[in-house]
């Protein structure tokens, strides 16, 4: 007998919104004597295969997830999932998952793990934490964290008395563009970025490799714009997938992007191609910018960037002609050089003078919706010492700066850091200079890792606490700031496998053992979510059933013609010239900084993403591993010929400090400049418990022994390492 979708819907309505329940079976009269037919259940949730947070719908059959699809009503997925989203099943059923709590019985980082019960492991951690608190004070416990789990552990640590935490998503990723947009427009460009790609006539990608960077709805809109004939201009030393869609591929010399941006601003101002009305009404400091960019002529920029002056002028004119529907992509991972914020400021200024902020085809505005914050508990946190999170960087973000935690741990300045919690972040793959990380780890009295897989960073821990996957747990609501505001739910689609627990449970149970139970006044997290839904006036049952609630009336994507729009800057206008930066001793208009270039025989190491992997998180995922087992080193074919390298041959990369990579296959290609080598980030795991990913490919982070720091916001520049090619021996 066949069960149609319609029949299923009817039956599902009877069985109700039972989530993560056992699969119902149909035993009709007709089916008597035959094997009962299992019916799939469809449970909506929020994906965590990357951090775009798409709505997903799990198809569950006989208690097993058999398929994941995009939730059609969720604006981040629109009925579709990327490869990684579909590969969520691979994470859930990865045989290498962390299955029980583990305690290291060897020396620090030896990973001589013995299995432990939750009671034993949490007791061990709580005991150590109490001792550290007595000896050094609670602030000497720091948290390195990423993703949804952050909420619970930030809460726990603050309740315990430590204000010290950092998320790699700031200084090592999106921070610079956030600072630049806040300084210029009074607000960050959002995550997901509020880019009106589907209406763009011109799309400028500065190293952003959409398609390879498979952020779902952004890729959907990019492809739509390409299909509608948008002019794509790609600035990239590599002929990316996006460059393959471009009318203009500008293979820029790495580290010179700011020169090209300033030259574009120069041409657009000189030729009067900017949006005069918009600039007059909504911006301040235009004259200062015009004056400052005078020296940055296309001819000057040609010498810096290797891009012919005529092409710089031509592309600037394309932008000017199509204003304001020009999208200068603000980027995401912008941790490149020592002047990250100034480079992103140039992006912001260019966006502003084209009149593209708050206009169709540019950057759309935040939806209008305010919900009162609902805290995990009403109880105040205890007083604490001055936090380290922002270091000495006046524009550092609230997410904190990872290298400040490492620095303080190594130097005991201004006070000792004696314990790290790492939750949802692989410290060996996320942070540069692995030697410094390892040295800091050796100084600790306690290292606790909470994660789903035995990543390299997890292997260093004294105690490993296995979190269940996103398909097995509740998490806090996600507020989505798309064109309209919305709320997305994550809920278990199956029960946790093995002896794994949700992040909130781990934090709560540890809290109990630290005498902090008052900070966790709810029994289950679903209780908390239901209470929160009530405060917010939303129907929890509806949210659980559909996965997403949209507030269409909140949408206000564009500034209306002639509208008296106030930006959230001190002046209320877009600050092309930044008084704020000036007051802190920085350039109010970006100035070009020359960065070192590789000498003969050396190549700049650049890195990026593949559509089927998310950092190191997925490299062991059986479903995704099959699509990409290891990364390859992209080498220009002329260089390869000169060196006698064959395509697919294993080589080793050696950096300026003599650090050798794991063996990696050479991809001999025309698709990259001769002065750089590109690898996809996240490979070359050294954790033996990751049986598929172990020693597959090269680890870019291992070769990033050097980094520079942008003094404005403390963001890191990681594209400052040079490598040479050695034959594999």
């Amino acid at each position: 007998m066949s069960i149609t979708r319609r029949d299923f819907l009817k039956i599902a309505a009877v069985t109700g919104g039972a989530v993560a329940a056992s699969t119902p079976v149909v035993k009709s009269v007709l089916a008597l004597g035959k094997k009962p037919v299992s019916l799939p259940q469809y449970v909506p949730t929020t994906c965590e295969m990357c951090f775009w947070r798409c709505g997903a719908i799990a198809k569950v059959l006989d208690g097993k997830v058999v398929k994941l699809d995009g939730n059609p009503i969720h604006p981040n997925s629109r009925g579709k999932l990327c490869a990684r989203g579909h590969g969520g099943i691979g994470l859930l059923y990865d045989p290498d998952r962390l299955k029980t709590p583990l305690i290291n019985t060897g020396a620090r980082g030896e990973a001589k793990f013995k299995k432990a019960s939750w009671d034993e492991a949490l007791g061990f951690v709580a005991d150590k934490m109490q001792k550290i608190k007595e000896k050094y004070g609670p602030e000497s416990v720091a948290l390195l964290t990423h993703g949804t789990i952050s909420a619970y552990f930030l809460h726990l640590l603050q309740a315990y008395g430590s204000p010290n935490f950092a998320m790699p998503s700031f200084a090592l990723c999106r921070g610079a563009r956030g600072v630049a947009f806040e300084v210029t427009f009074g607000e960050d460009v959002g995550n997901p970025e509020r880019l009106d790609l589907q209406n763009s006539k011109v799309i400028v990608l500065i190293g952003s490799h959409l398609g390879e960077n498979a952020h779902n709805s952004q890729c959907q809109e990019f492809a739509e714009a390409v299909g509608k004939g948008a002019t794509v201009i790609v600035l990239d030393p590599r002929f990316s997938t996006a460059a393959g869609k471009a009318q203009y591929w500008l293979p820029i010399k790495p580290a010179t992007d700011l020169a090209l941006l300033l030259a574009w601003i120069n041409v657009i101002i000189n030729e009067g191609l900017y949006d005069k009305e918009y600039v007059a009404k909504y911006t301040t400091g235009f004259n200062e910018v015009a004056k400052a960019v005078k020296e940055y002529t296309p001819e000057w920029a040609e010498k810096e960037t290797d891009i012919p002056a005529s092409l710089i002028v031509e592309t600037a004119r394309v932008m000017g002609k199509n204003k304001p529907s020009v999208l200068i992509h603000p980027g995401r991972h912008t941790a490149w050089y020592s002047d990250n914020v100034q480079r992103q400021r140039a992006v912001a200024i260019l966006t502003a003078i084209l009149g593209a902020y708050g206009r169709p085809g540019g950057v759309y505005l935040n939806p209008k919706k305010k919900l009162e914050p609902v805290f995990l508990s009403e109880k105040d946190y205890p007083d604490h010492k001055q936090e380290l999170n922002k270091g000495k960087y006046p524009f550092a973000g609230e997410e904190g700066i990872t290298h400040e935690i490492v620095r303080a741990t190594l130097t005991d300045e201004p006070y000792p850091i004696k314990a790290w919690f790492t939750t949802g972040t692989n410290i060996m793959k996320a942070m540069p200079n692995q030697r410094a990380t390892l040295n800091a780890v050796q100084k600790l009295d306690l290292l606790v890792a909470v994660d789903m897989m035995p990543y390299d960073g997890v292997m260093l821990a004294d105690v490993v606490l296995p979190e269940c996957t996103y398909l097995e747990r509740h998490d806090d609501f996600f507020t989505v700031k798309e064109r309209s505001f919305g709320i997305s739910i994550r809920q278990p689609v199956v029960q946790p496998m093995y002896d794994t627990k949700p992040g909130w449970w781990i934090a709560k149970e540890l809290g109990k053992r630290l005498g902090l139970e008052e900070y966790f006044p709810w029994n289950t997290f679903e209780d908390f979510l239901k209470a929160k839904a009530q405060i917010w006036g939303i129907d929890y049952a509806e949210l659980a059933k559909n996965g997403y609630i949209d507030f269409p009336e909140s949408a206000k994507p564009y500034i209306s013609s002639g509208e008296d729009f106030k930006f959230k800057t001190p002046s209320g206008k877009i600050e092309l010239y930044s008084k704020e930066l000036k007051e802190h001793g920085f350039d109010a208009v970006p100035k070009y900084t020359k960065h070192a270039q590789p000498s003969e025989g050396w190549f700049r190491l650049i890195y990026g993403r593949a559509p089927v992997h998310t950092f190191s998180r997925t490299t062991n995922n059986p479903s995704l591993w099959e699509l990409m087992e290891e990364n390859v080193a992209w080498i220009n074919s002329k260089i390869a010929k000169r060196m006698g390298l064959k395509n697919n041959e294993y080589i080793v990369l050696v950096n300026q400090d003599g650090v050798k990579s794991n063996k990696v296959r050479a991809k001999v290609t025309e698709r990259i400049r001769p002065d750089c080598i590109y690898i996809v980030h996240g490979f070359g795991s050294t954790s033996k418990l990751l049986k598929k990913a172990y020693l597959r490919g090269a680890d870019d982070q291992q070769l990033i022994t050097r980094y520079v720091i942008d003094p404005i916001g403390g963001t890191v520049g990681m594209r400052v390492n040079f490598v040479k090619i050695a034959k594999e021996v």
Partner: protein
Amino acid sequence: MPKYVMVIDVEKCIGCMACVIACKKENNVPEEHFRTRVVEEVRGEFPNLRMELRSELCNHCENAPCIDACPTRASHRAKDGTVQIDSVKCIGCKACILACPYDARYSHPKGFADKCTFCDHRLKEGKKPACVETCLGKSRIFGDLEEANSEVAELLRKHDSSVRLEFAGTRPRVFYIKKKFAGGL
């Protein structure tokens, strides 16, 4: 009889590989095997380059060499016009795999030939094939060419299209439309 076709708008493929894995999960394709793939073709020399990303799958040919090659009629034309394999009738002789000029079939570890079905089980439920449903670029478009108002019919009316290995005379039902790339398939 419907005339199911897939149109692939090559320009809109962004190489995200979602189709490849959605297909695998939907159809429970065994490890190391795939029913569809994305092919990358690069022409030119640095810095004058062109690239095409192209999805490839079973063409559900009107003149299907696999059907002709099958000794047991396991490979057959289904009532809906698509080319299908009856795994029970299949003896695993692999003649069809050799006969297919598109390398669209593989030998399933359980001993039968396997390939793309156009997700006929989904079509029966009124859904699109899994690869089409999830295609981020909407590069894969599916429909019935017999319906004059279908998106596929309209696309093929408006655009020049090509099929893979036209000279093979197989009359594929997977059509490629492209604007920029001039090379043959």
